[in-house]
């Protein structure tokens, strides 16, 4: 079947999909977006996490046919300044992961980035306090990392949240912050 939806703001069409194949397969194998990783295909590892209509989901657990007309945002869509066509700048969460040394082999990173981005937009981005450590751990409980031991990942999320907080304070409100994606309600 043919499935049409948007990915990172652009309309896309995947032809000849088997309706039971996963969104993860469609993104990686049909649309050339290999950012989302395939590690378990059973919802256990979180490395395939994307936004689906503004809510994070394991893309391996979504059937291609269920995506018709939906909005998907992948790790590729977390980079800043895309609309200006300028040099690709990393988003706040991505930069923080690089700086904090939260990436080793990198396989888990795309899922963690999307899930961390969601946490920060639901807290700081919604005008609330930066998430504390238990909140960060809870938000990332479905993302497995076999390399880092998680400490640096938590450091990175803390750093990203602080930076977003500073930005939000400077611009006088979360809503004017351009690099956020998890509109939930």
């Amino acid at each position: 079947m043919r499935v049409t939806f948007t990915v990172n703001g652009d309309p896309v069409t995947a032809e000849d999909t088997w309706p039971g194949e996963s969104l993860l397969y469609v993104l990686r194998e049909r649309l050339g977006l290999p950012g989302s990783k395939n590690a378990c295909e059973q919802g256990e590892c979180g490395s395939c996490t994307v936004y689906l209509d503004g809510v994070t989901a394991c893309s391996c657990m979504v059937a291609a046919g269920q995506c018709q007309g939906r909005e998907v945002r992948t790790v590729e869509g977390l980079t800043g300044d895309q609309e200006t066509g300028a040099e690709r700048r990393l988003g706040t969460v991505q930069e923080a992961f690089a700086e904090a040394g939260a990436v080793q082999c990198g396989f888990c990173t795309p899922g963690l980035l999307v899930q961390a981005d969601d946490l920060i937009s639901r807290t700081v981005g919604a005008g609330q306090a930066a998430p504390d450590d238990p909140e960060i751990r809870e938000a990332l409980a479905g993302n497995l990392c076999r390399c880092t031991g998680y400490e640096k990942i938590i450091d990175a999320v803390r750093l990203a949240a602080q930076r977003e907080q500073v930005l939000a304070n400077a611009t006088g409100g979360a809503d004017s912050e351009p690099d956020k994606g998890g509109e939930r309600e």
Partner: protein
Amino acid sequence: MEFLSPGTLEEALAAKSAHPEAVPIMGGTDVMVELNFDLHRPSALLDLSRVSELAECGTDGPHVRLGAGASYTSVIERLGGRAPALAQAARTVASPQIRNRGTVGGNLGGASPAGDAHPPLLATGAVIELASERGVRRVAAREFYFGPRRTARQDDELITAVLLPEPAGPQHFSKIGTRNAMVIAVASFCLAFDAAIRTVGTGIGSAGPTPLRAAEAEEFLAAELDWEGRRPLSGAAVRRFGELVASAAQPIDDVRGSAGYRRHALAVMARRTLGWAMAEYQKGETRCA
């Protein structure tokens, strides 16, 4: 494989009746595991994620009416006060990403004895609404589970909602697993007091071919409880309650735990949830909406 994508409940029921063999898919967190690993190749998938009626949550007489397609995340966000045990159970399901997609209706559709929604539905006397082109009927959760993955649902029926009584006393859920997140219960237990009619409800998960009740334990505790004076229970009564819960289970040995461990864990969870419930009851809280 056909992919049926109804936009309304009426269309969904028509599709299910025309294709009784079609496999419903809501959040997909059970169905997609089977498809990804080629465990099952259905001739048709019936996508219910666009049927907005199924995602609704409202009030129906004395009940909270939770649409079968409401995610665990929305149960946690919206029903903490009105269905505390179910909300507690929802918080223990998998991970945020899975809770964003997974639904109570899907848990009932799969009817795995390990499903976390079942013990609260049993303990609180919830009712399950089933619909087909032939009409709508309501089945008590206590009469819904027939056997391993077999339920009262007929092939042409869809689960449309769960009706949850307003809480009339403390409700507590407990679950044993190897870590806090992403864990299928080794065993789980739910206890609910109904102080209005002076009964106790229980639900046991992951320790039998279906989710179970501990009927004898329920009767024992309802008789033992000082409903009016709210005096503490004797240590012997608490222990007896734990034993009766454990003896109601029909556990097996499997990779997640032995039958003996499951019984032991159930006795512990029964005593613990009873402790939490008594503490709350003695404070006079009923946690109404």
